[in-house]
């Protein structure tokens, strides 16, 4: 039996080169200093695959038009086998992906791993970060409940405020009028047709560049022998992925994702709030009034993205031990404090609206809930 398997392996390798490829891939040498802090990239890729898989499962049961979107999501939650789990995984997976991508970026930033010759790897990473946020923004509308509708009203208005590009962005997103079928189709198309291949291409480029330049060495690594990626680092990555999935699965089962009432454009009592990771931007909007409005909605976020892209071109000194990178540590701390402060202020400033509980087990009256 063993001989047979070996023969089969040899046959396959002869025709595909798969053994050589796997050996090449797994036996890549990584610096002696690498370890647990490098697991975030693998976890992010894993979470992306979870999103692709659960997203496809959702799409099999989902009607992508306003009104029907809501009804079909209720159908997923009440009728489809494992539907609530699938939606929970997709919803919390999105949040978790933002967290892990940010942790990955923070790690690379703190260690200065973006330095020459890894600038393009970093810029591709910034692109992946922005794509992650774009999924969050476009996916927010798809349940077509009140939360989705009003959140998107605000988001599209901000897009329409962009200097010069504003009117074009507004048209691309379905016009300046109320959010309706056109905007919905655009967001859905973006979310399921455009963003995933773009993400895959950019992940490909990102990983290719990581492999091309190798994992960034730290000072002291040149004196120590490099180690292979397999098996120790593979084990660490796998364990991190396992832990991440355990947390995700627990959240998907234990924390119910809200589905509010069907989107009602005439509801004047609804208090819209964005997804939690956008709350700091939402709070920033309040700080700039009148003619300064665009500063909060467009200028500051634009500058932040520009600063991220420019980071490896501004900080070009030699690699340093992470403990000596005080400016980087100070910067990350400042961003963390600023983000936490703004988010806390936004949460504190949100009046406790009565939670509209949707009775999942109730009669199927939703079948008659027509889009308004």
């Amino acid at each position, binding site marked *: 039996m063993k001989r047979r398997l070996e023969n089969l392996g040899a046959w396959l390798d002869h025709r595909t080169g798969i053994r050589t490829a796997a050996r090449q891939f797994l036996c890549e040498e990584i610096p002696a200093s690498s370890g647990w802090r490098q697991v975030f990239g693998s976890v992010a890729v894993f979470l992306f695959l979870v999103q692709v898989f659960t997203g496809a499962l959702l799409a099999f049961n989902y009607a992508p038009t306003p009104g029907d979107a809501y009804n079909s999501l209720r159908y997923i939650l009440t009728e489809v086998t494992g539907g609530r789990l699938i939606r929970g995984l997709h919803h919390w997976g999105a949040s978790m992906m933002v967290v892990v991508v940010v942790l990955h970026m923070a790690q690379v930033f703190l260690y200065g791993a973006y330095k020459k010759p890894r600038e393009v790897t970093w810029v591709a990473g910034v692109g992946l970060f922005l794509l992650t946020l774009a999924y969050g923004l476009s996916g927010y509308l798809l349940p077509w409940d009140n939360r989705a509708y009003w959140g998107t009203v605000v988001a599209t208005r901000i897009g329409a405020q962009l200097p010069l590009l504003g009117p074009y962005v507004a048209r691309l997103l379905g016009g300046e009028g109320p959010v309706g079928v*056109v905007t919905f189709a655009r967001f859905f198309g973006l979310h399921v047709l455009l963003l995933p291949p773009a993400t895959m291409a950019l992940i490909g480029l990102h990983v290719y560049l990581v492999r091309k330049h190798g994992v960034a060495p730290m000072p002291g690594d040149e004196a120590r022998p490099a180690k292979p990626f397999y098996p120790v680092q593979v084990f660490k990555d796998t364990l991190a992925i396992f832990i991440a999935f355990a947390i995700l699965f627990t959240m998907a089962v234990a924390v119910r994702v809200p589905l509010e009432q069907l989107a009602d454009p005439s509801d004047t009592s609804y208090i819209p709030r964005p997804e939690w990771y956008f709350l700091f931007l939402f709070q920033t909007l309040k700080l700039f009034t009148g003619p300064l409005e665009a500063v909060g909605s467009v200028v500051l976020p634009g500058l932040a993205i520009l600063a991220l892209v420019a980071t490896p071109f501004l900080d070009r000194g030699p690699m340093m031990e992470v403990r000596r990178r005080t400016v980087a540590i100070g910067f990350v701390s400042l961003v963390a404090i600023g983000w936490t402060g703004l988010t806390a202020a936004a949460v504190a400033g949100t009046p406790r609206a009565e939670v509209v509980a949707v009775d999942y087990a109730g009669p199927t009256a939703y079948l008659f809930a027509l889009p308004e």
Partner: protein
Amino acid sequence: MEAGDVSALAGDRPVELVFRRNRTDGWKITSQKTTAWAVRGADGQAIAFGPQCTHLGCAYHWDDARSEFVCPCHNSLFGLDGKVLAGPAPRPLDRYETKIQGGKLLLGRLRSASESAR
């Protein structure tokens, strides 16, 4: 289109009028529930404000205790005349064209306040 009874309008607080109107939404024509906040102006004219905040389009509401229109999104405040009192809103509340016919308030297109003044 007909939105409500003129006699219901007051000068000191607005009335939320709810009516249906047909709206072309992309490739669909939908009969949509719409609202207007109507008030009797200083000169006795009926004024009807569009239901969306001029900042980022959230639905605002009338706060009786403060006698102001309050937008819950970014805390824009508007007076009974639609003027911005505080917050990030860039212009006064938009107004519907109004017409009174046989005691009924008829609403036309929604225009910005500066257009309506002309």
